[in-house]
């Protein structure tokens, strides 16, 4: 346990003192600001239903950037960099278990990913104040959207950790993770189309529904819905890829 906490603290420090993290945050909130402001203007001009705002607020296009690119960027150096510099060998000969190191690094990336999203919550509070919009915009979908994005982040960060454990090339690790993330966003729909009517049959329809992460975010989490069945996919996925990462590190011993 102490190994996990030590690794978590060390990794978190490195994230918070990295210029890359601030560049990501500033760019993300700048794009997001432009998008949300545009949405506010359009919705006010059309007299749109204000209950829609929270959903739109959470699933603006910049969210895709956060989902596809950021987990890959955050985790690319987790093991690849340590491998390249040789510090992984030192770490693995120390009296620590592989799974503790993996969990510590993954948790640090997850905490940082969640913190990146955190300003969305107080921002909505500010928008609801008299000085800004004073609209009684609902918080429910924002909170559940935050939960959904964090769960998806947990899953994708585990994928990123795994790809990083396979190579000593950071760029390759991040590109592989990005490719996987993109495939996860668009793959189930494409597969569903390929399968045609068969996609409606058990177990395909269950597996396809469970893996449609974009649909989970757009139609469920960001509308204020939390389905326990979807949680199984994200938590199970994170556990699976963290297991693969651990095994990948263990496999070094046999070489």
């Amino acid at each position, binding site marked *: 346990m102490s190994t996990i906490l030590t690794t978590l603290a060390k990794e978190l420090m490195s994230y918070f003192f990295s210029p890359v993290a601030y560049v990501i*945050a500033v760019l993300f909130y700048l794009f997001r600001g432009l998008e949300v402001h545009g949405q506010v203007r359009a919705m006010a001009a059309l007299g749109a239903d204000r209950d829609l705002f929270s959903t739109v607020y959470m699933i603006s296009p910049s969210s895709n950037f956060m989902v596809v690119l950021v987990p890959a960027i955050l985790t690319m150096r987790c093991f690849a960099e340590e491998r390249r510099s040789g510090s992984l060998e030192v770490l693995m000969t120390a009296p620590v278990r592989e799974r503790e190191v993996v969990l510590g690094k993954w948790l640090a990336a997850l905490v940082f990913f969640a913190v990146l999203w955190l300003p969305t919550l107080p*921002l909505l509070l500010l928008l609801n104040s008299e000085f*800004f919009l004073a609209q009684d915009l609902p918080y429910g979908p924002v909170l559940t959207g935050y939960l959904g994005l964090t769960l998806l982040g947990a899953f994708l960060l585990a994928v990123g950790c795994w790809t990083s454990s396979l190579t000593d090339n950071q760029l390759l690790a991040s590109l592989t993770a990005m490719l996987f993330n993109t495939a996860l966003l668009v793959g189930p729909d494409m597969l569903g189309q390929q399968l045609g009517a068969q996609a409606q049959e058990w177990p395909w329809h269950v597996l396809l529904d469970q893996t449609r992460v974009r649909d989970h975010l757009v139609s469920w989490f960001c509308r204020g819905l939390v389905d326990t*069945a979807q949680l199984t996919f994200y938590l199970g996925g994170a556990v699976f890829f963290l297991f693969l990462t651990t095994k990948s590190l263990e496999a070094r011993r046999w070489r």
Partner: protein
Amino acid sequence: MAMTRARRLLGRLHLWFASLVVLAIWILAMLLAVRPGMKALFDFSPQARFSVSPATAELLAGLGRGGARQLELHTFFEPLNETPRTADEAHVRQLRQRLQVLTRDLLQRYQYLGGEAVKVVHHDLLRDVAGTRAAATAFQVQTPNVVVVQLDRRSKILSVDYDLADIDIPDPQRQPTPGGQRAALPVLRDFKGEEAISSAIKSLLVEGTPTVYFVTGLAEPSLRDGTADAYSELVHALEQEGLRCQTLDLERVGSVPEDATVLALMEPRRELSQHASDAVLAYLRRGGRLLLNVSYWLVPEDWNPTFGRLGAALGLAIGEDVVYHLVEDPARPGTGMSGVPAVQNLRITELSPAHPVTRQLLRAGRVPELKAGREVQALARPPEGVSVDTTLLRTRPFAWLARRTAGPGGEPEANFFSPPDREAYASRSVGAVATLANPAGREGVAVIISAAGFNNAGMKVNGDLALNLFQWLAERKELVSVRGERYVARKLDATAQQIERTGWLLIGGVPGLLLLTGIVVLWRRSRA
């Protein structure tokens, strides 16, 4: 060397095997997690719009339990692919889009609750032209924006614009003003999808089509107009629930048709003639069902029939005076006040816990709000074979009977002030049930509601009571239920100044703050 190779191979095999086992566990967990007994849905959406009423949840669960019943919900939405050319077009498109989203959301919940017994199909004309056309032909769909509810082989078509939503449609004659102000645009008032779709499912579940005859020719409000005092919403809702609505000029025809399941008199303003009263009584004695809904009119005075002949045969009397009730004083909570028109509004909190109609409302905490009421009392000695229950709907205890007063010019005037005499206050009945024994067959039942509340202005609040009364009278007791809450649309209204401030916050404030934090942290780090 050979040992090392064998060890490597063994290691790889172990890795693959362990990975496959964990993957299998993950897939198994996913398959198990979607089983109805294993999953749960938590709704944090605005107005909990994905949460359907317990009655709808029970209805859908019942379909699943039956096993043999397959409910299909097909949508035919208008494609919204064209870019709007004007601001008005953009507004209408936005409204349509919102309705489509709300309908999809609702159907998503139906599918979730119904499991394998419910199938939702969205027909998209842009993606699958042939399939959509074939489905539209099969269901006889002629216009877009409809939902087809199909249960087994029977189906019903619901319009998204008219059946599932309440839209304020502006007067088409209204033109833009010379000042440049736009003509009024349609506005979504509320979404009543659950109410409409669940009613359609229920109407498909029961066999047969009972007929309700609305008695006309008694100066009653219109059954077809869209005005607040008309009854078009009630008629429409009854038709949605599978009842056929007809009109009957009783004075002219002279008898109640044999196929009448329920005879309804909605706010008649003239007395029934002797022969018409006798026709109604004959109908009741042969096991007929009557709903008599009267109200109070200040002027003209003769718009307040008491139906003395009919009442005497049913063992009850409808008063001539109006029932008023103290309203809560906003300045002193917990105390009552009078002297304001609101004393006419009667919140009916005293509902009979024994009657199936009111019991459902009590359970759901729905309080009918009636107005312009008159007291209905049981006669001391009802006729033989007649039993009367006046506990169906009663006011709270601070109701009094008010008489007309003469204004300065001698014209009648409402007196909203409460009497000083404490004896004048009581809980008063505005709803009663009279049952007429019929040795030859089923008993006749008459429900008297002596206050207004089922017209278009009151249906939103009292729709459950009205529809349940009709369903109960029609002996469709399984359809007596409480309908879902409506989703009320709330417009986003922001001034140009508010939008500008929001822009500063979102585009300047937040990224700027993050940039500053980054610079400070990295600067301090470099110094350390």
